[in-house]
């Protein structure tokens, strides 16, 4: 059986490179046109070309999301765009609108992956799309293990399943809350995440039903780390991490953890052991509870956040390594840290270096106590070599390990 693909999100060219360096086999990214997540930077054609060349040198792949629903006025532009993507050797496009799918299949050689926006949940729909020339289906987040097995057992097509990240509260494609609440089109890249708002819940007489917290559609995130061996053994082609809007640190950390877990499983299937520290790192990074959601058929009240939850931003990511010279790590600050802090520096395919910061310097080699300015250049003495693209985070607290 071919080794399963690890597919990571990229909101821009920098995150594309990071995801690949941290172990993704492929990345998905939006262009500046026709892509959901319209409000992340995405990548223009030149940046896409650079990203694709970067990926292909590593023998990895880039898929480009062309996954909005089209309106009439865009139809005349889409074919040119697809031809451009073909020219720069995109490995596949991800689409849900048949107008785009049909053009790509009949007028270009671009492989087409059916977006999760199409909410494919069964073998009959999978068979239809296979016959229409779709190479891969990104299954709906609502598919259970039973649904996936039924498709795999009956249809010979590549399947891509989400393993980690945020969940839509609705079936993808069946939510237009954003359109009606904010006039931003959910199916055209403008989703304003109304499902995370709080509401008053009323009964049929319009009397308020008061729980101790307000009503919300908001769900916990998805994490399939515990189910990784089961997913691999099912015969899924690709495991997808959600999050084109997520930070560089998030992309690097989540990709790194899943890369390690997948490799460890393949290296020794019989004696593979679930690594609780990985779970802790993922949990710290996302700063939200994560559960398996629909895979095990459980989507009860334990899957939801109901309240005006205190969602503080993640402060674990401290700095990105720019260089290593003269036993000195040169960093760019991303969050506050200071002398005395215990930190870890980690990078692709290497063990994390743990250290206590005892001295540090600014760009002018002046001794400082605190790194408080975003993007400030900091130097830290270090006798172990680190590399560009390594990241520094707060040390994972052993006591908080699960």
């Amino acid at each position, binding site marked *: 059986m071919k080794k399963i693909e690890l597919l990571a999100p990229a909101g821009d060219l920098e995150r594309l490179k990071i995801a690949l360096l941290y172990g993704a086999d492929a990345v998905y990214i939006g262009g500046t046109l026709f892509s959901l997540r*319209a*409000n992340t930077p995405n990548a223009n054609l030149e940046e896409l070309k650079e990203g694709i060349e970067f990926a292909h040198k590593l023998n990895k792949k880039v898929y480009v999301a062309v996954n*909005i*629903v089209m*309106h*009439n006025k865009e139809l005349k532009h889409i074919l040119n765009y697809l031809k451009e993507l073909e020219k720069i050797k995109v490995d596949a496009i991800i689409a849900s*609108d*048949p*107008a785009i*799918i*049909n053009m790509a299949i009949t007028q270009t050689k671009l492989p087409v992956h059916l977006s999760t*926006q199409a909410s*494919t*949940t*069964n*073998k*009959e*729909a999978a*068979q*239809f*799309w296979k016959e229409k020339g779709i190479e891969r289906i990104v299954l709906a987040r*609502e598919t*259970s293990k*039973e649904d996936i097995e039924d498709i795999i057992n009956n249809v010979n097509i590549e399947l891509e399943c989400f393993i980690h990240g945020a969940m839509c*509260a609705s*079936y993808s*494609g*069946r*939510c237009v*809350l954003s*359109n*009606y609440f904010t*006039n*931003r*089109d959910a*199916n*055209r*890249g*403008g989703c304003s995440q109304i*499902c995370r708002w709080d*509401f*008053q*819940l*009323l*009964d*049929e007489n*319009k009397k*308020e*039903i008061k*729980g101790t*917290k307000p*009503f919300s*559609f908001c*769900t916990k995130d998805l994490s399939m780390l515990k189910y990784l061996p089961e997913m691999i053994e099912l015969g899924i082609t690709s495991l997808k991490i959600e999050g084109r809007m997520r930070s560089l640190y998030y992309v690097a950390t989540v990709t790194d953890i899943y890369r390690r877990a997948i490799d460890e499983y393949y290296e020794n299937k019989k004696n593979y052991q679930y690594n609780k520290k990985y779970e802790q790192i993922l949990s710290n990074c996302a700063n939200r509870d994560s559960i398996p959601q629909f895979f095990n058929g459980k*989507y*009860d*009240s334990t*899957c*939801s956040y*109901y309240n005006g939850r205190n969602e503080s931003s993640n402060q674990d990511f401290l700095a990105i390594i720019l260089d290593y010279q003269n036993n000195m790590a040169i960093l760019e600050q991303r969050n506050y840290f200071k002398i005395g802090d215990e930190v870890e520096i980690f990078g692709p395919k290497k063990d994390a270096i743990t250290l206590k910061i005892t001295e540090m310097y600014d760009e002018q080699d002046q001794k400082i106590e605190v790194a408080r300015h975003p993007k400030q250049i900091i130097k830290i003495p270090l006798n172990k070599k680190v590399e560009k693209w390594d990241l520094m985070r707060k040390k994972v607290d052993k006591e908080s390990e699960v």
Partner: protein
Amino acid sequence: MYTGDFMTKIILIPSTKQLDYDCDAYLLGIENLSVNMPIYYNLEEIKKIKTQKEIFISLNKNMHASDLKQLEQTLKELEKLNIKGIFFYDIGVLNIIKRLNLKIDLVLAEEHSQTNYETINYWYQNKVKYAQISSEINIKEIKKIKQNTKAQLIIPILGYQPMFVSKRHLIKNYLEHFNQQNKSQINYIKKEQKIYPIIDEKVTTVYTNAYLNGIKEYTELKENNIEYVLINSLLINKEDTKKIIDKFKKVDKKNKEEYNNDINNILNNNIDTFFLHKETIYKVK
């Protein structure tokens, strides 16, 4: 009364099983295979319906492995009946009909993604005769689609519109979590003084805060030879539903303002034209 040759037919989603409305067609839901309907029928009830009007059946649920057996059986049974067509959301429905070579006309009812003529033509070429147009595009876009397709179009024109369909039982879960009692068949959520119906059955569906009222636009659709409009009677009583259908039957260019006001009054002015005259934002600058 509109005096042109073309007749735009009115499909009603009824809220009662007594089908004595003056519409041209009904759209009916089937237990376990339909969502977003005020009432659901079983197959035996469908078989017993006696009416001269066209009957469309909605099988618009997202289908999972456990639904496929019942779906296939239902489609085989429906083929034997005098059904005008089947509304569907899940492409699995189309594949079963194709695989079994069933002679049933189809309506693609992906309520938010039928937004351009190439998409509708794709489905038409795949033997989907009708398209329910997205409720998030405007009249100008609908007309452009009509000019560029052979598919017959169905336009949502009146009633609450579904905005959100979740597999999760969002009301049940909330009540359980906070140990609250609630026997309501329907609930509402409230935000900034606006109130939205929310119904938790097989799925949880959230509807618009107001009834869509497109009676003025209906006259324009008729002039453009649109084949069908769709009235959803969810949360409208039978008497008012009949009055509304009567207005639609009689509306013309001269009386459309008057009839529009009449419908607004029937619906307590809880009305909106939503996207019939505006565009949603594609990308926030």
